[in-house]
């Protein structure tokens, strides 16, 4: 048994090294973007040519860029609100609604995982043209609600499921209506998850390219702006500077969201114990 445990530990060390190498593979290509964004050369190539902030300066006073940024922020905020609202209601009714309809809706809500982005994009393109909306910011919001829905449903469902059933039953037994129970008991208990779902839905929208490509009208989002700039070799350093800012913001938002989610779940476990 002892020999086996020693072997187990040795395996663990080799696996640990592998995990380290894997993390390097995962992060290295992405971290090249910040590295070369400070490099004083138009080429992203070694050797590094010296430190500069000039590419970041080109980000200022660029009306096309700030317009795209504003678009992305507004679309992200609205789409994330919509997706979070749907995530909350769909998962709540799935768990407590006791109706086949609620279960069906919850199952369909997680379906977009099994549809390639290009097909989501074209199906919505046909739909928004049919309802005479056409490619527009509203169309993008609809697309992003759809794409973020599986995430918000999964997060909210696991949060609601972690709240002891007795809490909800106690509220109902004490005479609270469904609506009061939901608004005054279940929702406050899930607030960290709600915030987490909102932030992750915002990130999904903010970074999304595959679907937005079909649904954008005359006003591009930030990823579309980046895509349009990739054609010009001269603007690559600017794209890298912009990419660095986006990566930093994404890391911060995703990090906060994860912390919130785990704190929320941890608190729930303590409550049950």
């Amino acid at each position: 048994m002892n020999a086996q445990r020693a072997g187990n530990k040795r395996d663990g060390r080799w696996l640990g090294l592998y995990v380290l190498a894997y993390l390097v593979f995962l992060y290295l290509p992405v971290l090249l973007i910040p590295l070369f964004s400070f490099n004083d050369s138009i080429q992203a190539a070694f050797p590094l040519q010296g430190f500069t902030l000039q590419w970041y300066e080109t980000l200022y006073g660029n009306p096309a860029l700030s317009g795209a940024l504003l678009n992305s922020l507004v679309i992200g905020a609205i789409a994330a609100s919509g997706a979070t609202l749907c995530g909350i209601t769909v998962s709540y009714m799935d768990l407590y609604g006791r109706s086949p309809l609620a279960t069906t809706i919850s199952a369909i809500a997680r379906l977009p995982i099994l549809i390639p982005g290009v097909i989501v994009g074209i199906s919505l393109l046909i739909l928004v043209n049919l309802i005479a909306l056409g490619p527009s910011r509203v169309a993008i919001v609809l697309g992003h609600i759809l794409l973020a829905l599986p995430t918000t449903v999964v997060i909210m469902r696991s949060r609601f499921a972690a709240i002891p059933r007795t809490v909800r039953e106690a509220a109902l037994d004490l005479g609270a209506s469904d609506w009061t129970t939901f608004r005054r008991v279940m929702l406050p208990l899930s607030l960290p998850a709600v915030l987490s779902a909102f932030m992750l839905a915002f990130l999904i929208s903010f970074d999304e390219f595959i679907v937005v490509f079909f649904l954008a009208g005359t006003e591009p989002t930030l990823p579309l702006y980046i895509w349009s700039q990739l054609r010009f070799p001269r603007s690559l350093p600017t794209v890298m500077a912009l990419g660095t800012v986006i990566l930093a913001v994404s890391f911060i938002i995703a990090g906060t969201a994860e912390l919130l989610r785990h704190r929320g779940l941890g608190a729930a476990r303590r409550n049950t114990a």
Partner: protein
Amino acid sequence: MSTLIATQAPEARSSSGFRFAMLLPGALVTFLLILFALGLVLFLAFRGNDGSLLGVGLTVENFVTVATDPLYWTVTLRSLVIAGLVTLATVVTAYPVAYYLAFHAGSRRGLLLFLVTLPFWTSYLLRVFAWKIVLAYNGVLNSALIESGIWSEPTLAFLNTPAAVVVTLAHAYAPFAILPIYVALDMIPKSLLEAASDLGARPFTVFRRVVLPNSMPGVLAAALVVFVPTVGDYVTPAMVGGPASTMIGTLIQSQFGKANDWPFGAALSVCVMLVILVVVLVARGADRRFGSRT
């Protein structure tokens, strides 16, 4: 409806207004944006192209073209091979990471889980773009190889190849694969492993006979969440793949863009969904055959 609710004691007070309000947002999104929109694609696939939004007539011509033109067979086959390779690569490389997380990580588990999921939330476009600057002719990899004296001439062999597409997609979708496998491994009761080794099974036998079968649902889930987005991808082939790496997503995209034949693009989409359906069914079958029996 009301009699149905009345039979269930704690839900008896369930007001229909509450139910309606709570079901409405989800119902609108799922039925209108998902089911109806997909239905439109299916409908359009059986229409002829006359330049109007919903086409004209009722025809299977689109599917006949897909089935008879060797171009579509080549591209579909290539998409399947590329997506298959990407899926295999991501799942095989992710499995040891998930295994470490589940059984060896100890106090570092939270931090590591955080680190492997973080790239999941960064821009897909930027992750692909990173590979473009790595693989370019005067890019990072070429210049690094020359700088270190390994090679004397930059090579064109990296960018614009199907291999570049496989590497880029495998990197872009790597974080997708770890979590489902980890969840499956984490659910295996530790007592099961102890029982196996107490009964004299060697570590490899424990892995092969206990751990691997029990983690199959996670492996298959991981394979699906990697396979589905990669098989329809059009961004990566366009960025790093070159003309020899055209995938089925590229063809669909061009039908709704330059080629402007929406019904035909819809028919291609229906074919892709059928392929995915077959893959899902095969995965289900595999799950039933090799999966957990605990």
